[in-house]
């Protein structure tokens, strides 16, 4: 289809179908995560999800047969631009969209794709990711959760940690050691199972920001039917790595409410004021902010180029580590500058003032950005080996 026609049709459709309440800035509480336990914040939020899902536009790049929009790279870009034009909120965000979906498209059986993908696209099932364990953080492949073959199913026993929103999720995609005699990387399988299965329990972890987005997750002899394995036995690490590249792109691209983008310059002026020459009345902070602003312009240009590159059909592969490293380090600087500019106002923790201490909470939350999904140091190690080919 001619791209200009697609643009005008998309614009008209969004005008007609995007509720006014879904065209306003959103906070972390306004995200639509979907799933069996999800409570919509408004009828408009529910309606917006339903009309977008019916069009396949919650996952515009996925094939139509699996609930997607089947859009080309150029069409996806137009849809994004047209949604931004009217400040339309994302109708649905989820780990299913960002991580499991791409992995299933790559490694799933036809039956698995037809079963799981449309549920993700419609926001019916909310997924969580069972990767890290108490003894397997940066050394993820050292994981010990067991999956014992009992004939008709795997019996899963062990513990996961840092499972994002495990207490709110319906299903989990989980790395489990099913081949104890194989080597570290080739003994892992990728299993899918219902969080309501007997033997699954979760416990939220309270963070320094006061929030509890992560959980400890326990498995006590959980029975997982054998057709709920993705890929072959022992192929789990390959799938996990593929999926991690998507997670890193997502974190690096700041494609979520983890990265509150306030106007740093405006905030700094209102808190600190300008000197007689019209410069921020704090030369050291101003200099640091100048470097940050140039780096932000640079990273935005890089994201834009990367997006064009990927829409042209290229995979980032190990280079997702580059985006993850740059994007998260930059966001930590942004949040630090924000609270430094805010001074004692941004020490507010509770109460109505200063948006309930949002700046302080975002600042603390941002410290996890360079840890979750692989630390900055792990990213640099990946790049030095996989891209620069430095000796191991």
């Amino acid at each position, binding site marked *: 289809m001619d791209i200009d026609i697609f643009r005008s049709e998309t614009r008209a459709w969004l005008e007609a179908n995007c509720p006014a309440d879904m065209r306003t800035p959103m906070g972390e509480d306004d995200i639509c995560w979907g799933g069996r336990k999800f409570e919509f914040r408004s009828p408009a939020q529910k309606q917006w999800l339903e009309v977008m899902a019916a069009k396949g536009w919650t996952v515009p790049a996925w094939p139509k047969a699996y609930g997607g929009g089947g859009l080309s790279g150029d069409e996806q870009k137009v849809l994004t631009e047209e949604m931004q034009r009217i400040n339309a909120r994302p109708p649905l965000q989820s780990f299913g969209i960002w991580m499991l979906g791409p992995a299933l498209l790559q490694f799933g059986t036809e039956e698995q794709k037809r079963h799981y993908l449309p549920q993700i696209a419609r926001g019916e099932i909310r997924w969580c990711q069972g990767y890290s364990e108490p003894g397997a953080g940066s050394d993820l492949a050292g994981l010990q959760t067991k999956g014992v073959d009992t004939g008709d199913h795997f019996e899963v026993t062990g513990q996961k940690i840092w499972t994002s929103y495990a207490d709110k999720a319906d299903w989990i995609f989980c790395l489990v050691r099913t081949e104890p005699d194989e080597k570290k990387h080739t003994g892992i399988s990728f299993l899918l199972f219902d969080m309501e299965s007997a033997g699954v329990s979760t416990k939220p972890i309270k963070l320094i920001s006061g929030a509890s987005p992560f959980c400890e997750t326990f498995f006590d002899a959980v029975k997982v039917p054998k057709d709920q394995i993705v890929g072959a036995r022992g192929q789990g690490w390959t799938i996990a790595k593929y999926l991690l590249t998507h997670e890193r792109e997502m974190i690096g691209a700041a494609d979520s409410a983890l990265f509150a983008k306030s106007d740093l*310059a*405006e905030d*700094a*002026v209102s808190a600190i004021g*300008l000197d007689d020459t*019209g*410069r*921020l009345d704090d030369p050291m902070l*101003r200099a640091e*902010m*100048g*470097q940050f*602003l*140039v*780096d932000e*312009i*640079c*990273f935005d*240009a*890089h994201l*834009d*180029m*990367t997006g*064009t*590159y990927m829409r*042209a059909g*290229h995979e980032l592969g190990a*280079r997702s580590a*580059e985006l993850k*490293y*740059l994007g998260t380090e930059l966001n930590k600087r942004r949040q630090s500058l924000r609270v430094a500019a805010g001074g004692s106002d941004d020490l507010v923790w509770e109460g109505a003032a200063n948006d309930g201490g949002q700046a302080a909470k975002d600042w603390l939350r941002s410290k996890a950005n360079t840890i979750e999904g692989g630390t900055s*140091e792990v*990213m*640099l*190690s990946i*790049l*030095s*080996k996989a*891209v*620069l*080919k*430095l*000796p*191991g």
Partner: protein
Amino acid sequence: MCMELLSEDQQLIADSAAGFLRDGHGIAAFRALKEAGDDANSAILPELAEMGWMGIVIPEALGGLGLGYRAAGLIAEELGRNLTVSPFVSSAILAGTALASAGGEMAQNWARKIAIGDAVVTQAMDEAAKHRPERITTTVSAAAGALTLSGRKTFVVDGGIADRLIVTAKRGDDLCLVLVDPQAAGVKRASQVMLDHRNAGTVIFEEVPIAEADILAQGRAAEDVLAKTLSAGRAIAAAEQLGIAKAAAEQTYEYLRTRKQFGVLIGQFQALQHRAADLYCELAQVSSLIAAALNALDEDNAEVETLTRAAKAKMARVGRQATEEGVQMHGGIGMTDEMDLGLFMKRDRALTEFLGDAGYHTEWVLRQRGI
């Protein structure tokens, strides 16, 4: 490592630039010029003109290729990588942009000459050690019905070989761009060898007689031409610097893969691996920013000044990181003239000062954001 997609024309330019410069105009050729003390060499000019590169941004109607700044940036990157000495940035880009956008018969004639390699034209705008093109004391004045130009310009790149200079001057409150013959009475040129073994000089104008027709643009028109010229020059200088930084980084990665100490390859040390990988990430993102700045010039969109200044500022920092890390990771041998790293470091340093350093352009970004 490039993620910036190129058109067919652009890919062709990139490939031919890489091949042509590597074979015969590479670092060995630069070393020969350096040893001969021949800092004002323009022997490559006929070949650059033959390939159309001197007219790469000059419109086809004026005898150029009109392929635009993105394509020019690809050439500049290869010039940097090979340390090739040429009047590409001064004449093809700065003067080419100024003359093509100034309009008028005389400007167009000189643009044609640049494109075919018949002339080298350069800019004379700096008046002090730091690039501040807005601070101008050079003046055009009228006495007894005749116009004269007086002032002093410094860091005039390729000033020693130029056939014409485009001089920024004030006429009352108006900015003027004046085309001056360096052979004219009252012009004194003092050329010197700079640390990058290239030619740049000081030019003094003492009541140099000029005609009204020598004023290429005045007032608002001159400001527009100068702004476009500076943006183009900055983006292309950043692209040349990117080529230098990438070459320095690649030599360094290779050294880490092959140099042994303590009985192991030094690339096995995580302290070095992480610094190398950080450099790689910085090069990747500044590469995107420079491409975006060049695209903005080609589209002539509203982001031109922000992107070109950010690119120049960021590249100054990454260029320094690449060359300093290169020397440091090579150790003692990195300090020797035998290795290329020192040559990269010197050229990088000169390009950082040329058309404004990181502080100058970062200051602009801060003012633009109202702080």
